[in-house]
């Protein structure tokens, strides 16, 4: 029996259900078409709900899916049938807020695609092989944004202001390119 909370996948889709960035941590969906089918079904099921102020939740094919939308971005976190819903919601919130921090509040599809590297690093910092690495959005964003810091600066001493500053710097850079 698996006792450690496990995340099955994290999805970031657009308002038509198309992939922005997805990460699967489980073998439940072995092929790309299985993954796409899952995304399509999840999207269809949640599309009409209002998940803009609070995270929403649904049961689906023996998975628990928590989700939250902003602008034309749809965030999903999936766990097994018996997973603690509140833990899943914490992961979703961490992802959602970290993306918000990294995109400096302008959270939409265009911005997300232009900063896809940040989103991918963000996914990499939240969950490792299904195990939750971090749920605190500030820490996640800090770790992602740290990548233009000086090599010597230890991560722990870096404040969130610094993290945001680097995120901002990165943003301006990507706008200029």
């Amino acid at each position, binding site marked *: *029996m698996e*006792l*450690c*909370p496990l995340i099955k996948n994290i999805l970031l889709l657009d*308002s038509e259900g198309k*992939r922005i*960035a*997805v990460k699967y941590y489980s073998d439940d969906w072995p092929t*790309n078409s299985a*993954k*796409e089918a899952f995304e399509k079904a999840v999207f269809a099921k949640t599309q*009409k*709900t*209002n998940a*803009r102020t*609070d*995270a*929403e*939740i*649904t*049961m689906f094919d023996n998975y628990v899916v*928590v989700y939250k939308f902003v*602008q*034309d971005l749809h965030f999903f976190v999936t766990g097994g049938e018996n997973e*603690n*819903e*509140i*833990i*899943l*919601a*914490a992961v979703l919130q961490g992802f959602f807020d970290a993306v918000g921090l990294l995109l400096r509040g302008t959270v939409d*599809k*265009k911005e997300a*695609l*232009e900063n*896809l*590297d940040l989103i*991918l*690093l963000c996914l*990499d910092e939240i969950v*490792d*092989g299904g*195990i*939750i*690495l*971090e*749920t605190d959005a500030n820490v996640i964003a800090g*770790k992602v944004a*740290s*990548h*233009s*810091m000086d*090599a*010597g600066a*230890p*991560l*722990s001493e870096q404040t969130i202001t610094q993290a945001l500053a680097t995120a901002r710097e*990165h943003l301006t*850079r990507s706008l200029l*390119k």
Partner: protein
Amino acid sequence: MAQPLVKKDDDRDDEADYSPFLGIEKGAVLQEARVFNDPQLDPRRCSQVITKLLYLLNQGETFTKVEATEVFFAVTKLFQSKDIGLRRMVYVMIKELSPSADEVIIVTSSLMKDMTSKTDMYRANAIRVLCRITDGTLLTQIERYLKQAIVDKNPVVASAALVSGIHLLQTNPEIVKRWSNEVQEAVQSRAALVQFHALALLHQIRQNDRLAVNKLVSSLTKGSVRSPLAQCLLIRYTSQVIRESANNNQAGDRPFYDFLEGCLRHKAEMVIFEAARAITELNGVTSRELTPAITVLQLFLSSSKPVLRFAAVRTLNKVAMTHPMAVTNCNIDMESLISDQNRSIATLAITTLLKTGNESSVDRLMKQITNFMSDIADEFKIVVVEAIRSLCLKFPLKHRSLMNFLSNILREEGGFEYKKAIVDSIVILIRDIPEAKESGLLHLCEFIEDCEFTYLSTQILHFLGIEGPKTSDPSKYIRYIYNRVHLENATVRAGAVSTLAKFGAMVDTLKPRVFVLLRRCLFENDDEVRDRATLYINTLGGDGAVVETGEDVKEFLFGSLDIPLVNLENSLKNYEPSEESFDINSVPKEVKTQPLAEKKAPGKKPTGLGASPAGPPSTVDAYEKLLSSIPEFANFGKLFKSSAPVELTEAETEYAVNVVKHIFDGHVVFQYNCTNTIPEQLLENVTVIVDASEAEEFAEVASKPLRSLPYDSPGQTFVAFEKPEGVPAVGKFSNMLRFIVKEVDPSTGEAEDDGVEDEYQLEELEVVAADYMLKVGVSNFRNAWETMDADCERVDEYGLGPRESLAEAVNAVINLLGMQPCEGTEVVPNNSRSHTCLLSGVYIGNVKVLVRLQFGLDGPKDVAMKLAVRSEDEAVSDAIHEIVASG
């Protein structure tokens, strides 16, 4: 509800489709990746190319082996750059490419260098990458660094090492187990997530050592865990310890319950919920233990966060299945959730209410549900329909309003699965609640007037044909049925014709009218419909006069085929057209038992239309029919009892044999159910040679061999014994399966002509006293006991010796006697030191027997028992004591 989709501002329309990856192409990006080889690396440019590659992979694009290798080698060049941002992307890229073993070697040294770097971010990520792609041989080389990393003062590095350890434990347990000391130190870390990861790894290292887990839990529950996630883990480990210790610790308070209860007051919601859920899932949880957990869940029900409401209502829904009373306090909060925006929450709330509701609240509830049904999806509706069905079975008096509800929703729009669920529910209610029959049948009739599903129409027509004629006014159904003959497709028309014929056969007064209707069907276009009409006109006979229908006609129309359809299908497939016509008697009647499949799907109830309307015939009926069809056994009289099948072979042997003991007054018949599991063999002339030398009172009188036993098609052979009439003779029998085996060519399925005689040893079989006892319950044990003559009472005391538990002793005696426990007395409450158990049964010779058993614990484990027997015959009372004394 329908929330306006993202507003598409006009000013954004023109660039709505803009994407930095518009028109991206794999080939071009692979070309671009050549910049990785430039002597002067441009980190920004390289980062962008990696992002593009990752984007392609993320969109489901795949690289060929050659492409992947090429990209991988190019990416390894990037370790030359000192740019941190680029390095991060390189790490992610390497993980995505999951390189093969010989490729891994290329990056190993670079990664090992990063692992010992001063930069924390390098160390953390290099550990994660290296552990992900390594194959174990490398692990011993880097083990030293990993152990250091686990206790690194930087939490990100420590977490990276610990999480990697959790993954590596699956592939290289012996190495990871050596890190135990470091991991233990990390559990005490001040960083929340490090504590969580360390605890997870430590538990996985020790999970097979129950004592160590116990120790871990007892020390940590004293309170040194800060991280909410770690606390959730600890709760899970604690429940596991409770579960495993429950079996051998029946006395005293539940260990660690206080810890779980304490967690209900934790700051973090995830911990509160985890603890509440753990308490509700405790084995044999008492209502006192449940109360605090239910209270916090109730608070969650009115939370503003949908996730909390969902979590709470889902858990309460589960509790309602086992402890409906405990949940009733939440009913008011639950009712307000019916209008919840989130339909999953609303559905769970409704089904919970349906489980906890009492008879008086049903009507109010139904009103609320009616409004609710119109705006949920079919899948939720099915859940509600099933809940309503069980509610109706619980409160049969409410059948009118519940049946009305079902018929209303039956008329509304809906897909096949949903409609089928409703029809199944109505059918079950008709079957189980006699008062609901007439209204239910009419609802079904109205439904088929406008039913788009052929399957449902034919099933309902079939059901009508069986139930309709038994109602007070069968004639009112005729119109509905005949309408189908006009208005439907051929399949439904054929079904309707058969149903008409059944009415004609069962209701003599209707016969002339049915005759007229059937005659009209003779001009049908469809062959099947016309043939059926012709057939029925001829079988009903009597030229349409009011005459009684012959028994054999009824048998033909209503009699069930007493052969499993699967077997018939198999036999028909194997039949080759020849001079010899197909003999239906050669079809094996044994139903293949599927205990495994049934266990797998415990939630699946037999649904209405699939099961035969009168309920499946009890096995005794089936056995009786089977035995009386065998001439050798026809004169044995009435079958007294058939035992459950006893396996005589191990699972998964060449031949699977089990035996059913059929007890008659003066005979015993052993029915050996044999299955041949070897595709290359055909067994012929199968018999069981029974040695009854240890069963002196039995004498073999007949045996019926099995002519042929093909692969995977069960067959039976019988052996009959004579025994003194009315005497519960017991004895042991040893069995030997004897047969002629013929080789079968698996490609053609043809058997060779010559066979070899062979034998196969089976296990022994015993006829015991319990075989002579029928489980027959009484409704009021005390009354039955009082009315029985006290002169025939026999009382004695027995010492049962040391037993595992009181419950185990009680079960043992019940099984020994083979009697029916009454009034739930077979259940022994936890921790009790004495118990009274009431049993009733009918002994061979149709003698009623009542037994009162009083158990007491004598010393720590010794069980003493007082046995009082009353029966209609004192000899039988003595016999019961005899059974216990010799058992």
